[in-house]
């Protein structure tokens, strides 16, 4: 049962990350691409959840939580920072 849930979360995480990357590839301008770059956060959460379901709170499980927490905090900051730069660039 744990393996099935873990595999489902893994497949969902990989699918979301592939969608995010294809969005960055296919969109037309920088702000549109930036929307999809931020979607990688959800993939990180799903993959960390997959690791956690499989290994519970082991050493690697704790590191997966730490990684997901870091991405959850840093990705919006980075997206905001980049969007500000793109906005300033477009006003020139």
């Amino acid at each position, binding site marked *: 049962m744990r393996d099935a849930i873990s*595999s489902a979360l*893994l*497949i969902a*995480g*990989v699918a979301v*990350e*592939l969608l*995010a*990357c*294809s969005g*960055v*590839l296919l969109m037309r*301008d*920088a702000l549109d*691409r*930036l929307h*999809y*770059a931020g979607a*990688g*956060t959800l*993939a*990180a959460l799903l*993959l*960390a959840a997959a*690791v956690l379901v*499989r*290994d519970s709170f*082991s*050493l*690697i499980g704790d*590191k*997966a939580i*730490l*990684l997901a927490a*870091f*991405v959850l905090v*840093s*990705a919006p*900051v*980075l*997206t905001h*920072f*980049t969007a500000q*730069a*793109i906005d*300033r*660039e477009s006003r*020139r």
Partner: protein
Amino acid sequence: MNVWLWAAAVLTVPLAVLAIVGIRRPLLEGVVALEAAGIDATLVLLLLAEGTRRQAFADLAIVLAAMSFAGSIAFVRFVERLR
């Protein structure tokens, strides 16, 4: 090869695609592709750690996440000063 290593292999493909976006598109769009590639590479390292049962690789993923964040901020600042 288990399912985790297959997932890591699948997520390696977008890295090449994002590198092409980074090279061919204007500077700020390239930085966006770099940010997406940073998260993608981080996830690949996490999947490798789980797939090979070597938890040391997970340390690399955490370090890469931090370095990718700092590097992207530095790139954005650099691009802004360039203009």
